[in-house]
């Protein structure tokens, strides 16, 4: 197990296409008792290694479904999903997943919760110990390693979940509304930290969010989805500097343009209600 690699150091990723994630003409249909539901239709996306891509859209438009497809937790009804050029046919191990709820094990301390990832993957203990210390320092959890989840605030719990997702240095990190349950202030702090962590790790990130500001501040590109059946309405390039001070970014004309455009798209697609 090479613990020291990042996306840029993974020549194996550059097979066939070179994209980190490729979604090709994907549709997802669910069959419920009453009717057939089309959650996603005709979705095609290409995400380059090291990109930070946000996905926004109305509730129930299939944003989370998209992440489940990439992780292999769900199979598309038609179309293809590729991770590093490989067809996704079942749960993938080479990803990190962060859910809206931290999904921590109550009976494990913060450190032990992070280590669950290593235990499941049977990673060598000596290497992992150092990696956990690194992550704890990086996410500002120092001093809370031995706290149990119920002793941690929502923000701290989500940091633990993030450490757990990053432990094995996944080339792709999938985040499903990770900060949705946090208060506005903590959420901003977490945004700044996630941006920094992304730059330090070089991981490809797919972030599903309801916050337009969060989507634009963090991402290189924002995918705006239509309501169900969800498909890509527009992909917005965020032309902001790599170094993003939170307050300053908010007042950039480009930030206003991007958030305004997204708001228009989401507003236009929801006026039908």
């Amino acid at each position, binding site marked *: 197990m090479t613990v020291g690699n990042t996306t840029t150091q993974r020549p194996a990723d550059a097979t066939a296409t070179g994209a980190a994630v490729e979604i090709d003409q994907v549709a997802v249909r669910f069959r419920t008792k009453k009717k057939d539901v089309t959650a996603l239709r005709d979705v095609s996306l290409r995400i380059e290694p090291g990109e930070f891509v946000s996905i926004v859209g109305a509730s129930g438009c299939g944003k989370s479904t998209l992440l489940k497809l990439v992780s292999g937790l769900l199979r598309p009804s038609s179309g293809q999903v590729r991770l590093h050029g490989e067809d996704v046919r079942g749960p993938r*191990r080479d*990803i*990190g997943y962060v859910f809206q709820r931290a999904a921590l094990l109550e*009976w494990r301390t913060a450190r032990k919760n992070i280590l669950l990832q290593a235990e499941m993957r049977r990673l060598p203990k000596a290497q992992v110990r150092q990696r956990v210390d690194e992550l704890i320092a990086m996410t500002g959890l120092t001093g809370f390693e*031995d706290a*149990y989840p119920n*002793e941690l605030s929502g923000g*701290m719990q989500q940091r633990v979940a993030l450490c757990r997702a990053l432990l094995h240095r996944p080339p792709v990190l999938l985040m499903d509304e990770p900060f949705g349950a946090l208060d506005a202030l903590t959420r901003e702090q977490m945004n700044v930290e996630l941006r920094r962590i992304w730059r330090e790790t070089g991981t490809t990130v797919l972030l599903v969010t309801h916050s337009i500001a969060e989507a634009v501040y963090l991402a290189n590109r924002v995918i705006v989805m239509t309501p169900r059946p969800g498909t890509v309405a527009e992909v917005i390039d965020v032309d902001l500097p790599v170094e993003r001070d939170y307050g300053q970014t908010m007042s950039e004309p480009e930030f206003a343009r991007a958030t305004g455009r997204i708001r228009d798209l989401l507003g236009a697609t929801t006026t039908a209600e």
Partner: protein
Amino acid sequence: MAAQSTIEQREPTAPARTPAPAARRRGSAGGGLLRFVQSTWRPAAVLAAIFVAWWAVTAADLVKPYLVPAPGTTLDVVLAQTGYFAHHTWITTYETILGFAIAIVVGVLSAVVMVYSPTVEKSLYPLLLFAQVIPKIAIAPLFIVWLGFGLTPKVVVAVLMAFFPIVISTVTGLKSIDPEMLQLSATMGAGPGQTFRKIRFPAALPHLFSGLKVAATMAVTGAVVGEFVGANEGLGYVILQANGNLDTPTLFAGLLIMSLLGVVLFVVVELLEYFVLPWHASRRTDAATTSL
């Protein structure tokens, strides 16, 4: 009050509720004895009151001694024949514990199989329910016919009584796992065995323990029912004999020992839970303060 003071102490920017969780855990462990006394003095007082009432009723001669013997007389009966009571108590204890242990193994195993295989669950559930609703006292004679007068039929009845709450609680526990937890486990490349050991089973333990507490008391009842139907030893036998001889002091002694046996087994399970689940919500200090 307590909640208020912690809010005041917290720094406005500090995101965590408790800055020193380790210290808090140690503190709660040290206060264990105090909390034990705090939580037990009330039931102990009620129990004492019942004994006092019992004593008062008999001392005032309100009922005839052959109907309700005095507490002292009952105690004298036990002290006069400690060997006799010890032997029969041991027999019932042995049957109970054996039945309880078998019920745990069989109950947990069938729960696991039922949770992982819907087919087995659908096929087994009616049988399970049937085994539960059929009155044990009614089928116990059949077990005597089939299995003889010895230990086996008592243990079988105890298993039958204790098994049901264990299966139901374990199934509920295993099923109430957060599906996201299972998805997370899948992205970690964990196999079903790993997921079960590290996530699913520990998460089901609080449910399992509540089932075990019910089952512990049921096991005692089961063993005694078995003895009632046909036995030449055990507390059930003692009670039947005493009843036949209108020997109410021995009858009362048998009843008290039997109840004590159930209570002791219950407390043992509760202690076990205390040590196995230090993380559970019911053990948190906040919960403890609100219940006081």
